[in-house]
């Protein structure tokens, strides 16, 4: 294993077996890929190409049918490895808990002592700009703020690999841009490796060091493009001339695959 490779996928496929008269479906792969330690990788692809399946496979939430996933040199099998955090597209806040208790939830489970929980939770809440809402319930927050609670809940566990499955999918464009900035800040300050699944090409282009483009089902990586953005970047990068060119390049790669996915190729 190359020292700076954090996650490795080797010939990973995922096949949903035949059932109730339906034929088996190959959802993914084969995929060979390595995530470098500390980089931000975006994954884009047509609808139904297996992006979320890929994320679940990397996380250990689903097992590959063939091939292997390794995280920090150890194979990922049947359970999410320590050091991996996942933020989902759906609202995953617990409505019966306050913001503070939502954020502390995983730490309490991990048996961290009370003083340390308070310190980490306070830091995460402050980092995500939720100080004024510590005692609020999720129903009192907007969709963007709830997603920040979910990110804070992941952050307190100090993951070395953060997987994000279209975390801003339900948000409006302005909020997405601002949440993207928060995510970049988080990535820079934690030094974590980040893999972001998204259907938004501009989001992937703005946030990522590299963008992997997937084919229509079964999802494979048809191209992996380097953005060459500086590490210190924010949403203003969208006004750079290079940004438009990069996004156009992504669209060129993905257009035919999207047509195939829609059945209009």
């Amino acid at each position, binding site marked *: 294993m190359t020292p700076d490779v954090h996650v490795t996928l080797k010939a990973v496929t995922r096949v949903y077996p035949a059932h109730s008269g339906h034929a088996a479906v190959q959802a993914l792969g084969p995929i060979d890929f390595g995530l470098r330690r500390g980089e931000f990788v975006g994954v884009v692809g047509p609808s139904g190409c297996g992006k979320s399946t890929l994320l679940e496979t990397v996380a250990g939430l689903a097992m590959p049918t063939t091939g292997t996933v390794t995280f920090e040199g150890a194979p990922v099998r049947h*359970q999410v490895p320590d050091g991996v955090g996942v933020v989902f597209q*759906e*609202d*995953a806040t617990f409505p*019966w808990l306050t913001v503070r208790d939502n954020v502390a*939830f*995983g730490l309490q*489970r991990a048996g961290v002592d009370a003083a340390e929980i308070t310190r980490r939770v306070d830091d995460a809440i402050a980092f995500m700009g939720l100080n004024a809402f510590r005692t609020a*319930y999720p*129903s009192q927050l907007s969709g963007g703020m709830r997603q920040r609670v979910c990110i804070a809940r992941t952050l307190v566990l100090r993951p070395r690999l953060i997987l994000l499955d279209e975390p801003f999918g339900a948000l409006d464009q302005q909020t997405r841009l601002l949440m993207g900035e928060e995510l970049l800040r988080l990535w820079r300050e934690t030094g974590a490796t980040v893999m972001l699944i998204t259907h938004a090409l501009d989001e992937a282009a703005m946030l990522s060091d590299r963008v992997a483009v997937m084919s229509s089902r079964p999802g494979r990586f048809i191209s992996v493009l380097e953005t060459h953005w500086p590490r210190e970047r924010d949403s203003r990068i969208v006004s750079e001339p290079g940004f438009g060119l990069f996004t156009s390049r992504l669209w060129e790669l993905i257009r035919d695959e999207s047509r195939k996915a829609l059945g209009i190729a």
Partner: protein
Amino acid sequence: MKHPALWRSAIAGGLVLALEVLCRTGVINAFTMIPPSKMLVALANMMRHADWFWADARYTFQNVAAAIVLSIVPGFLIGLVIHALPRLRRVLNPVLLSYYSVPTFVFYPLLIVIFGIGQLSLTIMGAMFGVVAMISSTLTAIDRIPRVYGKVARVMRINRWRTALRITLPAATPHLFTGVKLAVAYSVIGVIAGEFILATAGLGRRLSLSFNEFDNATMYGLILLIFIVVAIINGVLQRWEARIYRRWYRA
């Protein structure tokens, strides 16, 4: 309509008043029903003077409380297990759906043979009535929990037991209220009816005795008492449920 609670109270009050008038004017004859005001007086007299009252009331409400607990706790746990085993659920589904079409009371003589006449038979009778409502409600409640919570539990590497306690139970709570309310109602029915048919003590037995002796004052006083107790329990559950819904869905 503004102030639905006020309207509800007004309608209930109106119905009680109408019943009072119908009984007092003889439209409903005194042999069939006594006026609500007399039911209240009869209940108050029983509470103050009847030497059997508190012992029988304690007997019945102990049985009801035990039946409610035996409906709700095992009902929830059995629901959890059935939900975790989809094949078992497919097998049991027809049984759960048709359970209340079977007259459960046919098992009461069997319970008496096995456990004797007494609190255990009555409690089991009450629980047999309530437990399936709780199982069905638990299954529906868990079905309605967002799947993402299960993924969150796995990402946080929380074991199944802790997930059930810390995530599944609270997430299912608002949807479990239907089962809890039904379990309470069915437990009361099971216990009172069991006592009515065959028991050595209890308000159901007193009901049966007063019915056979044409003692309308005692019979309606007891019916009123049972009605008031069940209404209070349901009122408390309703308020609790409404509070949770407000907190969860106020947006």
